[in-house]
């Protein structure tokens, strides 16, 4: 039984605020932290504090960083003529894990979802346009989700960038590599057929 109002209760309440953590999971995590080396718990607390205090959006691309510029924007070897527009900072991580893109990113901070109150003014679209207007950008790759809202966000961004002279592209879609046609759904096949390329 956890004492009501005590520090343990406080920890449980904080843990249950995390996504996917209910009261039982919170209790399990709390007991795990206390049962082993207490230094692990202190290290976790320090890491959480450091993240909360130091992490902020990159001045240029809005990726998360603990410096003025994120590592990608600060890297002189990256191609500044290519900007890959993504919805969230975690999307940057996905592309970086793939390791094939050598340009820069721009994090919108979400997607255009007016039904949920997410209008264009809440995204960093105006900063994207400013970046393009500053010059040096040859291509903007719109890498928003392949959903109606993601496509709508891409369409909105493409309309904003029209007239800037920059090439605007959208990520390809269709069959996932390594899968089989048998497992593909109708939409994947339709997308793959529509986006086929010369062999």
């Amino acid at each position, binding site marked *: 039984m956890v004492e009501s109002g005590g520090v343990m209760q406080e920890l449980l309440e904080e843990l249950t605020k995390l*996504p*996917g953590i209910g009261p039982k999971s919170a209790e399990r995590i709390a007991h795990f932290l206390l049962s082993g080396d207490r230094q692990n718990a202190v290290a976790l607390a320090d890491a959480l504090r450091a993240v909360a205090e130091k992490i902020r959006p990159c001045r240029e691309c809005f990726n998360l960083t603990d410096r003025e510029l994120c590592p990608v924007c600060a890297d002189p070897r990256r191609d500044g003529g290519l900007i890959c527009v993504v919805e969230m900072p975690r999307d940057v991580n996905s592309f970086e894990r793939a390791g094939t893109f050598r340009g820069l990113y721009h994090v919108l901070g979400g997607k255009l979802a*007016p*039904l949920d*109150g997410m209008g*264009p*003014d809440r995204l960093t*679209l*105006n900063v994207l*346009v400013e970046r*393009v*207007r500053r010059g040096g950008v040859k291509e903007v790759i719109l890498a928003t989700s392949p*959903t*109606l*809202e993601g*496509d*709508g966000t891409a*369409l*909105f961004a493409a*309309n*904003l*960038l*029209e*007239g*800037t*002279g920059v090439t605007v592209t959208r990520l390809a879609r269709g069959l*996932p590599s390594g899968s089989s046609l048998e*497992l593909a*759904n*109708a*939409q*994947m096949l339709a997308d793959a057929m529509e986006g086929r390329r010369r062999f």
Partner: protein
Amino acid sequence: MAAEKALALVVRGTDWSETSRITTLFTREFGKVRALAKGGRRLKSNFDVAFDLLTVCHIVFLRKAHGGLDLLTEAQMAERFPALRHDLHALYAGYYVAELLADGTQDYDPHPPLFDAAVATLRGFTIPASRPSPPSPPEGASPEPAGRSLAHPFPGNAGGVSLPPTLDSVTAFELVWLKELGYSPRLDVCTGCGARVLPPGAVRVLFSPSAGGVLCSVCGPGVSDRRALSAAGLTALRGLTAPGEQPPPDLSPVRGELRALLGQLVSFVLGRRPRLLGYVEGR
């Protein structure tokens, strides 16, 4: 729990846990249904890609006996509307249809004609032949730098000067929505006293959302939310609502007037201004 089958339009969705999704569906057979799709976010699931917004799908779901979320067990995409991905006017109009269905109908209150009207509206949007050119700036205005403003990313919506024809489909859908909900405006006689409202030679009448239709010159002044409606606007509205009368082929002369009136009427019925109304009308 009995398994039910339905044809559904996805009108709202939110992620739930790492792999599941809560979806609001407007079904032809049962009206609005809110259901949990366990594993609905996985690439390989029983749900195909059916839960993207404004997708028509065949669903199988387990109806909960005592309220709460129903449980989706299967979904297969039946139809998507490509124009929504190519035209912002169409996309916003589609979102508006979704908002009226999701927020303006009750759970398990079926309206097959409303479902059909929603699908017909979405189906009616066509992919523009080419991307429209940027609007020319108003006279005297300094030329805008390359790129469009955030407030008006596409032409034809700045300040509502030129309302897009997409709005005519929206107007027609709103009238079906109002009719199905029992709020179809009365346009033949005064809602206050039953008198004839458009005597020969009259150029405008009064209309009130709270009164539910047109008002005569005697009853009208006493109603606070009254607004003027031109004779041409009234004729167009009658044409759109009465099955026997033919609507005018071109609504452009009264489009702005009808939009303002229906926006007020829909807001009255919904109890608030629809979130998407400003987007649809470009304001």
